[in-house]
């Protein structure tokens, strides 16, 4: 008689998950699944031939490609209205998500070891959240006092570093790179994603030993140090959104954007692969609500200013707002 491991239940990106034989330490066991998150999305490992068999009848269109600076293909997503979304990376393998987002079939390469679970939490689960009716922003987010602060920025502009510093000062992490948002009545809620912070080399060097220890388990992946940190235990109302940018000034400048450029908000959304009418409408609705209901601020930072100063600016703004 063979022993079969029981599925592990987790919640992330506002979706209830059932993981079969897959260990993902960055999915925090303490996160509560919202009632609307049912039914559970089943995540399981399969042989590549199972995905190939399902995909055999697909008439796919290339929905997304990500290439390196040298032109090498790093990630592709093909979409088929019936079979769903096939994500492939030369490093990790192939993965299939049906259009309803109720399943994730994973056929990782043997050599992918741990890296493919980074793809799972960084790309596949945000895709699932989008298919399950949430909207996902390309942002980091922390829960501070009574609200979620979101940070959007181009790659490398400091959104992870801002979140990292605020977490070290006591904020709870909501997500590093992809934040799932949905509307509950008159509130917009940000859901905890994966409890992982992917820290760049420069920021890693600035971390003191005690800070590294406080963050928890770490490993190297794709040129970054990934810390597995605990996340907020459930969704948090969105309190503000900061759009990070650069300035030639000597000090960081925070100013409220009024009016908000809707196209900047739209550009900050995630999962460009999903272009169904339902999703496009929801995406526009969410951006309209963000512009209407949430303070949207630009936070322009000089290149010489570190993430600690940036986090202090955010704290100062949050304190002023409360008082």
């Amino acid at each position: 008689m063979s022993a079969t491991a029981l599925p592990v239940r987790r919640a992330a990106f506002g979706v209830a998950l059932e993981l079969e034989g897959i260990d993902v330490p960055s999915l925090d066991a303490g996160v509560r699944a919202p009632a609307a998150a049912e039914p559970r999305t089943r995540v399981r490992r399969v042989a590549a031939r199972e995905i190939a068999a399902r995909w055999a009848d697909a008439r796919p269109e290339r929905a997304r490609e990500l290439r390196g600076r040298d032109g090498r293909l790093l990630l592709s997503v093909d979409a088929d209205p019936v079979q769903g979304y096939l994500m492939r990376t030369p490093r990790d393998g192939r993965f299939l998500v049906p259009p309803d987002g109720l399943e994730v079939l994973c056929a990782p390469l043997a050599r992918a070891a741990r890296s493919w679970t980074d793809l799972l939490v960084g790309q596949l689960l945000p895709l699932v959240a989008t298919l399950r009716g949430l909207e996902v922003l390309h942002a980091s987010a922390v829960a501070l006092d009574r609200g979620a602060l979101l940070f959007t920025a181009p790659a490398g502009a400091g959104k992870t570093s801002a979140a990292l510093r605020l977490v070290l000062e006591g904020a709870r992490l909501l997500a590093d790179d992809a934040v799932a948002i949905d509307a509950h009545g008159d509130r917009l809620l940000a859901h905890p994603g994966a409890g992982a912070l992917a820290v760049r080399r420069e920021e890693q060097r600035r971390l003191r030993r005690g800070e590294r220890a406080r963050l928890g388990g770490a490993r190297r992946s794709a040129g970054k140090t990934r810390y597995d940190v605990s996340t907020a235990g459930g969704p948090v109302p969105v309190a503000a959104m900061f759009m990070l940018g650069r300035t030639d000034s000597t000090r960081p400048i925070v100013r409220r954007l009024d009016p908000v450029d809707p196209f900047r908000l739209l550009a900050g959304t995630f999962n460009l692969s999903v272009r169904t009418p339902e999703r496009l409408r929801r995406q526009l609705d969410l951006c309209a609500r963000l512009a209407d209901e949430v303070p949207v601020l630009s936070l322009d930072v000089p290149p010489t200013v570190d993430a600690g100063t940036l986090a202090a600016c955010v704290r100062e703004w949050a304190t002023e707002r409360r008082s």
Partner: protein
Amino acid sequence: MPDQLTDAELLDLTVRVPEHVVHRAFVAETVVLNLQTGRYHGLNPSAGRMLAVLESEGRIRTAADTIAEEYEQPLELIERDLAKLCRQLLERRLIEFTGGTPG
């Protein structure tokens, strides 16, 4: 075809926003989304208001009356601007004639 119609002929027609088009008003801009193409279009506040009035009134000339009154502007000026906007929206398939394309 709209480009074969004079402004006067165009103003007598009725338009609607098709089901595959949604629009949301932001403070300084209205975003119009064509769900079939996934393409977004931006309209300034005046054009956004014109679209909203066109959607509720249907007949272009009636919409012009409403907007001229609302903005306290000469009717001829509004009719000219509205006809121009309608041509642009028709070209992008963001509005359509009710009962099909004339001519």
